[in-house]
Each structure stands twice: as structure tokens, then as C-alpha cells.
């Protein structure tokens, strides 16, 4: 151990891999171009594609919110669609300007209000969740999701009855592409927060309590407070996604969140988080986008192969099947999910040498070491 001979003061950089050269970064920058093309160029090809891409961005935010709650904090949630709905409901009602476009300021207030109210609702669920774990938590979040939908979203003064609450975009974001750029900026905020969760004591605290609450509190982590924080941050991200959702569909309608529609959303969110690889930012974003785009992708495919009618009739079931197969193959064969597959690339992009061998990271740790269901 040559390293041991070094003086105490010098170690900060002693064991880091050699810095990447300018050329290295240039190559990485070039390699990033296809990804950028996928994110910026492809959606610009048609208005429909832009529209689908916005939906993918919304799902990406929900995926990141699941990543915080399920991936880092280790709390299972079958009620995440409630936060999306609360964010959308709040934003639409705060901004509600009838048929006129809101000014940007009102719009911003609406989005922020959606985030705050959703975070508050998540705090309530979190406070309940502090007492329970495992299976009970799953059932309670499930009930929370459906109770929220049935009790709040059906209030006629809030849901605009059959017409829904209109949520027109401000003039500057009227066009789909402009709104898409706005949605991407919101995704960027979520990614930024996720990055800093992971780089600071917050993420370490959440992961520690996910692995072992006793150890976490011996390390001085306030387990109850951090669990609550995990719920609040996750709820805030989902609420942000909800605000964007409302202005994407330009209305809030309770039908998208109540009963079976809400339940299938909840399941998709769990499935995409697991398939993406819990704890893996890139994997969850990729999986979330995929699940958001299943329908347009399959519709396009069915259109070209003449199966369109059959597909349209069986849409929901086909999506179920795709989700189920991906989920089962992930948990059985590839617990790290998509994140595990992408990891060599994400590591390389972050400046580490390219290696298929997974040295440092614990892929699928949330699934591998998470809190087991106890009675």
C-alpha cells in the first residue's frame, strides 16, 4: 500500500483517477451529440412528436420523484399519481383565467403552488408512513392515492365538472416546442436537485435509512425527519410534473386520476422506476420516457403494419403486457435495471475511464438491500 506513505494533507486528490484531458472531454462532448439530437432535434420534427416529447418529460419528472422516494428513501409508493394530480389540480385552479392566456407571472405562481401543495400532501402521507413499513405502507399509499382521487379530485368546484379546469399556457409558451423547452427546463431542475441529493448528506442519509434505520440513527441521521424529507421532495417533484401536465393538456380533468385510470398510472410509475433501476438517475429517466412514449411508438408501428384497429382496441392490455414483461425480466435477471445497462456510459460521460466492469456503484441496491416487508 504505497498510498499509506503519503502525508495526511495530501490525499484529497491522491486516489482519484487521472483527470480527463481536453481531448477526452471533446470526445465525450461529441458522443453526447446523438443524445442531444434525440432530446432536441427529433421532437422538433412534428407538432405531434413535440407533444409526445412533453409527455415524456413529465414522466421523466415523475420517474425522478419515484427515484427519490423508492430508490433513495426505500419507501414503496403506489399512490404517486395522487401527487401528479394534486400538482395539476392546484396549478390549474390557481392560474384559471378562463379562456385567456395567463401572464407569465400568474403561470409561475400556479406551477409553484402546485409544487408546494403537492409537497404538503406528501408530508401528510409521509407522516402516516412514519408509523408503518413494508406491505402496510404499500397498502396505505394505495389507499391514499385512491382516496385523494375520490375525495378531492371529484369536488366539482375544483375539477371544473365535465369540462375540466382550463389551463391555458402563457403566450410565450403557446407553441408546443416552446412549452417543450420549458418542460425540459423543469426536468433539469429535478435532475439538479437529484444530483445534489446524491452528492450531499441528504442522499447519504436517505440511503442509510433505506438500508438500515438503526445504523442510520447511530450515524446521527434523524430517520423520521429524513423519511419525511424524502416524501416531501418526491411529492414536490411529482407536483411540478403535475403542473406541467396541466398546462400540457391545457386542462385539469379528474378522469385522468380517479379509479382505474389513476390506479394504472400508479402501477406504470412503479414499473418504470423498477425497470429504470432504482437509484439510477439516467436509467429512471430513460425508462420513464420509454413508458410515456409506448403509445405513440406502438401506434406508429401498428399504423405501418396495418394493425392499427386491433392495437387501438387492445392498447391498455398491450401496454400492461410490455410493462409486465420488462418488470419481470428486470427483477429476475437484471435487478439493476436499465441504469445498470447504462452505467458504463454514464460513468464515462462523468469523466471516468470507460469500463464494462462495474467497480464502485451499487446498482439495484434499493431492490437488493431495501427494507424487507415485515409483519
Amino acid at each position, binding site marked *: 500500500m504505497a498510498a499509506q506513505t503519503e502525508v495526511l494533507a495530501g490525499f484529497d486528490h491522491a486516489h482519484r483517477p487521472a483527470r480527463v484531458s481536453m481531448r477526452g472531454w471533446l470526445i465525450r462532448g461529441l458522443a453526447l451529440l446523438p443524445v442531444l439530437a434525440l432530446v432536441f432535434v427529433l421532437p422538433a420534427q412534428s407538432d405531434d412528436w413535440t407533444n409526445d416529447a412533453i409527455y415524456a418529460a413529465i414522466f421523466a419528472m415523475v420517474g425522478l420523484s419515484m427515484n427519490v422516494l423508492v430508490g433513495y428513501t426505500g419507501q*414503496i409508493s403506489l399512490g404517486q399519481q395522487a401527487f401528479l394530480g394534486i400538482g395539476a389540480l392546484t396549478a390549474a385552479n390557481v392560474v384559471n383565467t378562463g379562456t385567456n392566456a395567463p401572464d407569465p407571472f400568474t403561470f409561475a405562481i400556479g406551477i409553484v403552488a402546485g409544487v408546494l401543495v403537492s409537497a404538503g400532501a406528501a408530508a401528510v402521507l409521509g407522516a*402516516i408512513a412514519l*408509523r*408503518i413499513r*413494508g*406491505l*402496510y405502507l*404499500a*397498502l*396505505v399509499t*394505495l*389507499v391514499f392515492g*385512491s*382516496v385523494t382521487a*375520490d*375525495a378531492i379530485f*371529484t369536488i366539482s368546484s375544483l375539477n371544473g365538472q365535465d369540462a375540466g379546469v382550463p389551463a391555458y399556457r402563457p403566450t410565450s409558451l403557446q407553441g408546443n416546442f416552446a412549452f417543450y423547452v420549458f418542460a425540459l427546463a423543469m426536468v433539469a431542475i429535478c435532475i439538479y436537485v437529484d444530483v445534489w441529493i446524491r452528492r450531499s448528506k441528504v442522499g447519504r442519509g436517505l440511503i442509510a435509512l433505506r438500508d438500515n434505520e438503526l445504523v442510520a440513527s447511530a450515524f446521527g441521521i434523524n430517520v423520521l425527519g429524513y423519511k419525511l424529507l424524502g416524501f416531501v421532495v418526491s411529492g414536490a417533484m411529482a407536483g411540478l410534473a403535475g403542473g406541467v401536465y396541466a398546462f400540457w393538456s391545457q386542462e385539469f380533468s379528474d378522469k385522468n386520476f*380517479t*379509479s*382505474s385510470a389513476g*390506479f394504472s398510472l400508479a*402501477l406504470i410509475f*412503479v*414499473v418504470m422506476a*423498477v425497470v429504470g433501476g432504482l437509484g439510477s438517475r439516467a436509467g429512471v429517466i430513460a425508462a420513464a420516457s420509454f413508458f410515456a412514449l409506448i403509445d405513440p411508438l406502438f401506434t406508429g408501428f401498428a399504423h405501418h403494419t396495418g394493425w392499427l384497429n386491433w392495437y387501438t382496441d*387492445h392498447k*391498455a*392490455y*398491450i*401496454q*400492461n*403486457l*410490455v*410493462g*409486465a*414483461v420488462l*418488470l*419481470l425480466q428486470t*427483477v*429476475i435477471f437484471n*435487478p439493476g435495471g436499465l441504469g445498470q445497462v447504462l452505467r458504463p456510459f454514464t460513468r464515462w460521460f462523468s469523466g471516468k475511464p470507460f469500463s464494462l466492469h462495474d467497480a464502485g456503484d451499487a446498482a439495484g441496491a434499493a*431492490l*437488493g*438491500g*431495501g*427494507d*424487507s*416487508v*415485515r*409483519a
Partner: protein
Amino acid sequence: MHVVADTFSPQLHLVTPLISGLADGAAYGLFGLGLVLLYKSNRIFNFAQGEFATVAAIVAFLFDRGVGWVPKVPYFIAITFGVLAAVLVAMATERLVIRPLFHRPRVVLVVATVGVALFLVGVEGLLPYPQTASLRTISDALGVRSYLTQVDGVVVLDQDVAKLIVLAVLAVLAFLFFRYTHTGTAILAVSQDATAARVVGISVERVSMATWAIAGFLGGVAGVLLAVPPSGSVTPGAFTGLTLVVAFSAAVLGGMTSLPGAFVGGILIGLINAFANADHSFVPGLNSLPTSQAEVAVALVLLLVLLVRPRGLLGREA
């Protein structure tokens, strides 16, 4: 209790929903039993339990009607095929999904059963058959009257009587099975203490397969009993939501580890549904509430109980 005097008849408004609630609730109780059995034996919560029931109902329907290339067979054989299909699906789930994940954290297994449920719903949905139809009732199949009208205006669906008879027979069979067969006692042993059971030479893996088969059987029976008119159907995913509601009340009552708690939980849900949906509910206000809000109220009560007593009302502490 406030009672609307001029329209209230104890027979019609109390006894009728009571009996239909008990009958449906007892079938719901089978869901609860299957769930709790699996949960007790290896701490797995099976999200696919409701789909075992749907599979049974659909297969029974296909054979009873002779849909597509499926041969039409007599009603009771069709029912048997349905239940058998549920058992096979449950055993396949155990072999292909549960066993490879047996030593992983339980939350992985829960997620995996969600996957199984989604998979089954997807496959069911792609089958070409009339998905909103329902299975024939036993009385239909036997060609007897569809109502038994007894003394003093108590209206009883004979389908409900059939349900209760089937369940009584099942209860006796279950008692004999768990009391006198090797597999039955082994399952109980594993559910009480898996390590100790292993020590005395019980193969936990084999017992796991048997437990899943029984869970499939219970789900299948519930499915063919419930997928009938007036409210049941053979729709893909028909029973998953219901099973979750039953599971929740079973968890509230028995902490997911009490077989009686699960059964009582099922009956409770059956009664709540029957009284909430009765044409003239005797509880003022209940029938004027939209169903969703009645459900919200029930869910909130259950939630509250779970928070006060996280191990359930009948569950033992620590």
C-alpha cells in the same frame, strides 16, 4: 338509529342485504384467505391473487360457452377447468417468478407479483372473447329458478345460497386438509416458523409450491363464484381492485397473519357493499352518498385503525 318508517321493512332492508352481503363477503373472504396463507408462509404479498380469480372465471366462461376453438363442455366441468387453470397459473407463478427470487428482499417479491398481475391482465385482454359478459350462475346451469323467495318477503338469490354451501364444504375440506394431511400440516408448520420447519425436515420449497397451488385454488373458486350476474363479469383485471380492498381490510383486522381476520375482513367488505348498494338502505344517508364517497369513508376508517393498531385489530402484538 333513525329509520324511515313508512318504507322500512326489516326483511327486505336488513335480511336481504345481510344474506347477499354474507354470501359475497364469504367469497371475498377466500381472496383474503389465499393472501394471508401466502403472507404467513413466506411473507409474500400477492398482488396477482385477484387475477387468479379472473383467470378461473375466464377459462370457465370459455369452456361453458365454447368460445372460438375452445370446446363447449358441461357447466360443472367448465367450472372445474377454470379453477384448475387458476391453480396451474399460481403454480407457474411460484416456479417461474417466486422461486428464483425466494431469497431476495420481500419488497422485490411484491413488485414481482405486481408484474405477474399486469402480465395476466395483459394476456386476458388480448384473448378474443366478449369481455363484459359474465359467467352463468349455478342455478342458471341447473335450470332452476333464479330467486328463492322465502317467508315474509325475504328475497334470497339462490346463487347466494350456492355460494354459502360451497364455502361450507370448502371450510370442512380445509379443516380436514390442514389437520390430517402431511402437506397441510407442513404448510401450517412453515407458516409458523420456517426455520424450525426446515430443521424437522420439511422442504420449504415444496411447501411453497403447495401453498401457491392452494392460493390459486381459493382464488379460482372465488372467481367462478363472483363472476356472475348481477354485478360480476369476466372482464380482465376484474378482481384485482376488489382483492386489494379485501387485503386492506384483512390487514386491518388481522395484521395479514390471521386467517380468521382475513375471512372476517372479506365478509365485512361484502356487507358494506351490500348495504351501501341496497336499493333502500336502512342507514339514512348512506345510499344517497355516491359510492365513491362511501368507499372513501370506509377507507379512512380502515386507515385510522391501521395507524392506531399497526398490527391489526385481531393481530397479536409483538
